[in-house]
């Protein structure tokens, strides 16, 4: 039994654990304002304080901390992408994730489960091999495996050939992991607050003050705040906040849904993804099966759920795991995700000076929380965009230099 718990339990009065300090008064000026208190905004605040000693920072969120997509995602972490830019970037995130509990003094329940992307067609087998080669070349552990090896990893998977989409092989990525998504947000928030960052919940940014192409501050529901630099990290609301700053984004906001089953005794170790069947599944630390699929077919700014999603998802899940037929879905929900045309993020500088952006996280941004926080902090603190994220610049679309990550990012998360 860890010592801290012993000490806690022996205290008579059972003090309520406080992870965050009470919310301070909103000041009228800060050095840095971060719009959006999701994982990305909080991580950026933490690394600004820790790596660069910049602590005059306010994180503003219109709701509660980590209540956006950070609260809604299925927490899959992996680096087996297709483009070199993507692979390098997400590999750095995994390295940071592995040390995160120590770093934040908060257990984010990082759980290395292994990640399987099933291939049901020859084309998918080819892509898997391609991805495996790119991954290995960049030092990421990934390989193409075949049904007998898959059976060892997931004995319960239906590997029969008498099905509509027989499984021909899989891209196996041993470092694939899940983590407790809320803990990542709370851990960053608490660690940032300890270093002096201010966290402001229920403060919505309603406008961006600008003059001569420079950002000067933000209008909020609690008054005007002036600042030296601004970071926008609002995922689903990216286009709306960018419009306040006067520019457009290559982003389309659509709902992404997910669901969980009732808690079950663990039987599924790796994360299993099937692009052809538009589904993925993992089993959480509580024993719930966490399941997701594709984004909704049309855009809305409403986190409503649909029956079609649930029906389609479950029908496909039963092709992979027919014995799940008697298992009950516990709940279903949605988040609003910021999709880019090339399935890669938009990071770095913007047409507005001192105004930085961290957007385009679509269905894949949870796994990037540490690296994007760290690298955006570096960008804001030094004014220079690090090489690792330079290619994700907004300007790439005007140069027709997209980073085509679709093959590795859709459904895969």
């Amino acid at each position, binding site marked *: 039994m860890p010592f801290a*718990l012993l000490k*806690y339990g022996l205290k008579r009065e059972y003090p309520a654990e406080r992870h965050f300090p009470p919310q301070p008064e909103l000041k009228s000026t800060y050095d840095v304002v971060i719009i959006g208190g999701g994982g990305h905004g909080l991580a950026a605040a933490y690394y600004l304080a820790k790596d660069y000693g910049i602590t005059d920072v306010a994180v503003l969120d219109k709701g509660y901390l980590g209540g956006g997509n950070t609260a809604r995602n299925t927490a899959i972490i992996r680096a087996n992408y297709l483009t070199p830019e993507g692979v390098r970037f997400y590999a750095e995130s995994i390295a940071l994730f592995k040390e995160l509990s120590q770093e934040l003094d908060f*257990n984010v329940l990082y759980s290395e489960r292994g990640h399987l992307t099933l291939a049901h067609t020859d084309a998918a087998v080819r892509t898997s091999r391609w991805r495996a080669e790119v991954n290995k070349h960049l030092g990421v552990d990934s390989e193409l495996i075949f049904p007998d090896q898959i059976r060892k990893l997931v004995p319960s998977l239906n590997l029969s050939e008498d099905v509509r989409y027989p499984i021909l092989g899989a891209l196996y990525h041993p470092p694939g992991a899940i983590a407790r998504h809320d803990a990542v947000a709370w851990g960053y928030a608490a660690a940032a607050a300890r270093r002096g960052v201010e966290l402001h919940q229920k403060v919505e940014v309603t406008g961006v003050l600008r003059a001569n192409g420079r950002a000067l501050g933000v209008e909020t529901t609690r008054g005007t705040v002036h600042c030296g630099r601004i970071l926008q990290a609002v995922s689903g609301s990216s286009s709306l906040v960018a419009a306040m700053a006067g520019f457009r984004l290559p982003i389309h906001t659509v709902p992404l849904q997910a669901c969980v089953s009732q808690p079950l*005794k663990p039987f599924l170790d790796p994360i299993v993804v099937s692009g052809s069947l538009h589904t993925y599944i993992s089993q959480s630390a509580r024993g719930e099966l966490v399941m997701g699929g594709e984004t909704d077919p049309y855009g809305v700014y409403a986190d409503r759920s649909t029956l079609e999603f649930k029906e389609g998802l479950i029908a496909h899940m039963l092709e992979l795991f027919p014995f799940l*037929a*008697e298992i009950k879905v516990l709940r279903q929900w949605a988040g609003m995700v910021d999709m880019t045309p090339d399935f890669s993020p938009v990071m770095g500088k913007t047409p507005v000076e001192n105004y930085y952006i961290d957007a385009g996280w679509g269905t894949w941004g949870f796994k990037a929380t540490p690296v994007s926080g760290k690298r955006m902090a570096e960008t804001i603190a030094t004014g220079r965009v690090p090489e690792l994220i330079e290619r994700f610049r907004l300007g790439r679309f005007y140069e027709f230099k997209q980073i085509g990550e679709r093959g590795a990012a859709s459904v895969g998360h």
Partner: protein
Amino acid sequence: MTANGWRLPAPAGRLLDRSRQVAFSFEGRGYEGFAGDTIASALAANGQWLLSRSFKYHRPRGVLTMAGQDANTLVQLKEEPNVLADRREIESGLEVWGQNYTGSLERDRDAWIGRFSAFLPVGFYYKAFYKPKGAWRYWEPIIRRRAGLGRVNLDASPGYYDKAYGWPDVAVIGGGPAGMSAALEAAGAGAEVILIEEGPILGGALNYARLAADGNRAASLRDELVAAVEAEPNIQVLTSAICQAWFTDNWLPCVQGNRLYKLRAREVVVATGSLEQPMVFRNNDMPGVMLGSAAQRLIRLYGVRPGRRAVVVTANGDGYGVALDLVEAGVEVAAVVDLRPDLPVCERIEAVRGHGVDVIPGHTVWEGVPGPDKRHVAGVRVARITGEGECADGDRAIDCDLICMATGYAPTAQLLYHARGKLAYDDQTAMFTVKKLPPHLHAAGSVNSAFYLDAVVAEGRHAGWAAARANLDPTSSGNSRLLWPTTSGVLATAVVVLAVLVARTPTTVPTVIEATVPALEQPAEQVVAKPQVETLARRSRLTFRHWAETAPLLAMRERALRGEFTEPSLAVSLTTAPVPTTARELMREFLPEAERSESASPAVFPAWPWLRVYGRETI
């Protein structure tokens, strides 16, 4: 009573078919129940109250709601984990097991962990297991092994499932008095109606609750409504069917057995009732601690005596109904502990006292005392309430094997939330109440905070009428709401308006209707003749036009004239409109001090005994 003394004789056990015995097993031991028994009720009838172990501390758990609304009854079947034992019916040869234990359910070797609860506060894992570096790799597999409840049968083969579609004009969800009334009214107006009820029979609370001291009112109303529903060709009834969700454009998935009905309804009436809420005290999760309504369900639906010696803790009249039911079922009621310091004058309380039961006002339950085997309550410690949120140390101990909690309700509002209805906490009723509903969705009955039977029925009728009307007239968005004094000052105002009218013109019910309704049919400006009414209407920014337009007032008037209503349901039909003053203030202004009733509900205006204010608000 059967040999072991838990099974009650008929007519208790409305759902049982006592001519058919069903043998099944639990934890490897054979049991017998009757057809119609759920796993939980059949086990209870055999004195087996322990059903499961809790997720973290492996504490013993048993029946809590008897309504499929809690995790305490989750059991394991061969092909299916996490089955609700209080909802699944027994079948011959069914093998049932407990879940989440090591060794046996009775003697769970993992229960030791409960002793360390002091060291494992909520969220403890965020602050543990990661130091020193690398420790997590060691801890994680140990913790992961403890996850989950039921076990998946990896060889289970999927059963047969299918789908059916329906396009009703009006879908009514909930087959209690409000839902049945709504269905009847809508069908009567020509709409095709589907009525969805999750229980095996229609009736809802009328099947198990006790609504008056004599206990017969519910049954007679139930029989009346069920007969009318069955005789109505425009109503299709689905029982044992759960409407699982509300999706955009009234798209409703309803599961009945292995069939999924997908209904596209033009209008939806949600009449899903309310659920009693558990009370917070130490050991409130032990077997033997259950909701008052759970005890009533055990008795009335399943013919099971819920205990031998009971303590009821309550804060409303329904707790006394529970006590009366227990007495009639042969349970010794040791005490009724009432949180309220001053008890209202009420028939049910008097009836309970009449049975020699000790009524203890101004007290609360401090803790449940576990028996020697730690698997069932054996007593209760009761404490005097000394102030807001404070009480004396547990000053009385009472032996009992049953604690019934009957302290308040929450609306079963999930479907309303799905549809983005707005609910907010209402201090007057001490519960969440509906504030706003989207178009084509209606709420009626206790999900809408109406608790008195006349109010529930009138609301159901109103909602059914409004739904049918909206369906017939596509330009109407429907959902005008009937508001009761419990939900808003508006309605209370209406009642007051009528009360005042009555006060000035001594009269009987039909003449009140006569006196007021003609006025309602006229535009607002013509109502000026009645000075008091006009003043009130102005003050509350209500015009009588509002009344006339929205409620099925005229239909109601017809009925009233035909003598169908004995009580002035008419008096309380209104739309929502902002009111500047509360009912209480209006009362103060218009009624002499002596005539204001401060008694608990249903508040009766002393001067006009026929005029009842439904709900808990004292105005």
